[in-house]
């Protein structure tokens, strides 16, 4: 154990607190998903189950979209899974927080991984504390609870919600990812990988608009490959 060991409870609470901006952004998205799901014929139990088992906003939305379009279960699962493929890259970068942990903690830890985990690891780093397992656990759990809760709320209300665009709430999700960029920037060595990643996405998604989830993965992987091949200083 390291000497600056703080209690797991304190780390969990800190993680939940640092996750708050992402929780707010995901909550607006969650209400929107709940609304759509109800309108598409999902019951409250189904909304709740999907949010708990899948725990991925965009993947759930795409699967829902495919179902409504009559594409069938196979296509819906495949589309959602394609969109979620990027989470593979996220749990990969969470390795240091989980390696050497008991297996049940690893099984729980990977389940809580989302895009927001990257932001949380970043915040943890800027606190000069290693983004520890319990820190990520606290953040992930609080986000999961908020996600299940808000998608259900959206499903129950389904009508009579004030227009979210009036308050700029629909922009929260975009804003949170844009605001993460400066924190992720590690210096000049990132220039080329980031240009490759962004450029690949713009090119691929423009050429194949229906395949934007693959554009995402291709962009991130090619960016990573660039960083691996090119020696930074």
């Amino acid at each position: 154990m390291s000497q600056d060991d703080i209690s797991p409870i304190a780390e969990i609470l800190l993680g939940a607190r640092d996750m708050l901006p992402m929780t707010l952004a995901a909550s607006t998205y969650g209400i929107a998903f709940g609304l759509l799901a109800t309108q598409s014929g999902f019951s409250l139990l189904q909304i709740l189950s999907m949010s708990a088992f899948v725990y991925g906003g965009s993947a759930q939305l795409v699967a829902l979209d495919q179902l409504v379009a009559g594409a069938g279960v196979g296509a819906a699962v495949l589309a959602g899974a394609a969109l979620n493929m990027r989470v593979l890259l996220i749990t990969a970068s969470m390795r240091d927080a989980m390696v050497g942990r008991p297996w049940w903690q690893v099984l729980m830890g990977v389940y809580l991984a989302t895009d927001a985990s990257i932001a949380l690891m970043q915040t943890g780093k800027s606190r000069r504390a290693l983004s520890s397992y319990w820190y990520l656990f606290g953040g992930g759990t609080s986000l999961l609870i908020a996600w299940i809760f808000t998608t259900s709320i959206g499903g129950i209300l389904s009508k009579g919600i004030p227009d979210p665009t009036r308050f700029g709430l629909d922009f929260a999700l975009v804003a949170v990812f844009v605001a993460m960029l400066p924190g992720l920037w590690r210096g000049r060595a990132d220039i080329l990988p980031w240009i490759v990643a962004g450029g690949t996405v713009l090119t691929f998604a423009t050429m194949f608009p229906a395949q934007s989830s693959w554009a995402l993965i291709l962009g991130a992987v090619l960016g990573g490959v660039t960083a691996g091949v090119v020696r930074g200083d």
Partner: protein
Amino acid sequence: METEIWLTILGLGVASYAIRLGGFLLALRLPRTGPWARGMDALPGCLIMSLVALMMLKAGPLEQVASLFVLLIAVKTRNLPISMIAGMIFVAGARLMGF
């Protein structure tokens, strides 16, 4: 439709979990130095960069300008909640003025 929905939830739930666990297991097998490690270290930034690029492609002019605004605030303050709320106020304000 009822059965279809449940099968989709189950299928996508299992697939998503397999992806999550797969990423960690994959990372365990990769070397911790050299090109692989450099690539893995750059991955989070590249992934969020890709997400933002895709969002910009789908966003309207107002959201694009607002994103630039959020980026500037974030560079200045290095504070996620403040940058996010500033962006939302920007968008809400611009819409209020009829943009």
